[in-house]
C-alpha cells in the first residue's frame, strides 16, 4: 500500500483490507464487552486497537498509526493488564444484570444511537475526497509538527500540564504513606512467639503423586485439607484446589477392590 494511494484514492486492496479487518475489529469490540473475564476483554481490545492502527496507516496517518501501536496498545493496554492482574486475573465478572431494566435500556439506547449515527452519516454529503497528498508534500511528520507547534501550541502545552497533573494524581491516589517503621525479622519472630498462635513455620502445601503445586492444600491426619498450607492470597481469592476428596476416593476404591478380592478368596475356600 503506497503512500500515494493512501493519499488520493482507495484501492481494491484497501477495500479488501477494510472489510476483513473491519469485521475482526467489530468482533474484537463485541468480545471486549461480552467476555466474562477482564483479561480476555483487555486482549480483545488490544486486538481491536492494533487493527485500528492499521486503519490509521491506511488513511495516511502514519505517525498516528505508530503512536497507536506504541502508546495505546503498548503502554495503555499494558497498564490495563497490569491492573487486571493486580485486581485478580482469573476473577470472572458476573454478567448477570442487577439493575432493573438497565440492560434493555442500554441495548435500546445503543441500537437507537447507532441507528441515528449511521443515519446521520448516511445523510451527510461526504462524497468529496481530497486525500492527504498536498499536505504531506513537505513530509508527513513535519506537517504534523508544524501544526502542533504553531496552531495548536497552547493546546499542546495544556495537555502537557494535564499529563503531569494526571501522573501526580495517580500517585496521590495510589500511594500510601508508611506511618510506622517496618518490623524487622527479629521483631516479627518475637511477636510470633508472644502471640503463640503459630510458632513454627507454616506447613508446606500438599505433595501428591499427581498434584504438586502451591494451590493444593496438604491433608491433615483425618484426611481433610488444611487451609494453613496454602498462601493467604490464594485463600482470599478462593483459588484453592482440593484434591483430598480424590485421594480419599482412590483409597476407598482401593479398599473396595481389595475387599472384593479377599471376599472372592474366602468364597473360593
Amino acid at each position, binding site marked *: 500500500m503506497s503512500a500515494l494511494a493512501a493519499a488520493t484514492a482507495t484501492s481494491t486492496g484497501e477495500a479488501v483490507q477494510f472489510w476483513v479487518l473491519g469485521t475482526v475489529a467489530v468482533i474484537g469490540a463485541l468480545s471486549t464487552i461480552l467476555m466474562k473475564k477482564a483479561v480476555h476483554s483487555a486482549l480483545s481490545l488490544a486486538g481491536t486497537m492494533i487493527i485500528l492502527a492499521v486503519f490509521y496507516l491506511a488513511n495516511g496517518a502514519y505517525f498516528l498509526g505508530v503512536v497507536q501501536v506504541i502508546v*495505546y496498545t503498548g503502554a495503555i493496554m499494558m497498564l490495563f493488564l497490569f491492573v487486571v492482574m493486580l485486581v485478580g486475573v482469573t476473577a470472572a465478572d458476573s454478567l448477570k444484570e442487577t439493575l432493573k431494566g438497565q440492560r434493555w435500556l442500554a441495548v435500546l439506547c445503543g441500537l437507537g444511537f447507532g441507528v441515528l449515527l449511521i443515519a446521520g452519516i448516511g445523510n451527510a454529503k461526504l462524497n468529496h475526497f481530497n486525500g492527504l497528498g498536498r499536505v504531506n508534500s513537505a513530509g508527513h511528520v513535519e506537517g504534523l509538527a508544524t501544526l502542533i507547534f504553531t496552531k495548536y501550541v497552547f493546546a499542546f502545552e495544556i495537555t502537557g500540564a494535564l499529563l503531569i497533573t494526571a501522573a501526580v494524581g495517580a500517585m496521590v491516589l495510589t500511594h500510601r504513606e508508611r506511618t510506622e517503621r517496618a518490623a524487622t525479622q527479629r521483631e516479627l519472630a518475637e511477636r510470633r512467639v508472644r502471640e503463640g498462635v503459630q510458632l513454627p513455620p507454616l506447613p508446606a502445601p500438599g505433595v501428591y503423586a499427581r498434584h504438586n503445586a502451591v494451590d493444593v492444600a496438604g491433608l491433615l491426619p483425618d484426611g481433610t485439607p488444611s487451609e494453613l498450607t496454602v498462601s493467604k492470597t490464594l485463600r482470599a481469592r478462593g483459588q484453592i484446589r482440593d484434591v483430598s476428596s480424590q485421594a480419599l476416593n482412590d483409597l476407598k476404591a482401593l479398599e473396595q477392590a481389595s475387599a472384593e478380592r479377599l471376599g472372592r478368596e474366602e468364597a473360593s475356600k
Partner: protein
Amino acid sequence: MNPVNYLYLAALLFTIGAAGVLIRKNAIVLFMCVELMLNACNLAFVAFSRMHGNLDGQIIAFFTMVVAAAEVVVGLAIIVSMFRTRHSASVDDASLMKL
C-alpha cells in the same frame, strides 16, 4: 471503496463501546469500553482528515490519545484504591451517592 465506510465502522465501534459502558459492572472493563469509544472517535477523525485533506483531524486524534492516557492513569488509580478499600471493582458497589 468509499472512505465513508470508515465512519460507519467508527460509529459501530462507538456504539458498541457505549453499550459496554452501560452493561458492564467491572470498572476496568468499563474503562476499556471508554477507550474503545475514544478510539472510534479517533478513527473518525483520521478518516475526516483524509477526506478534507488537512492534518487537523490527526492532531485532534493525537490530543485525544494524550487525554485518554491521562484519563486512564487517573481512572486506574481510582480503581486500584477503590479495590483496596472494598475488595471489589464493581461500579455498582460504589452507589453511596443516593438518597
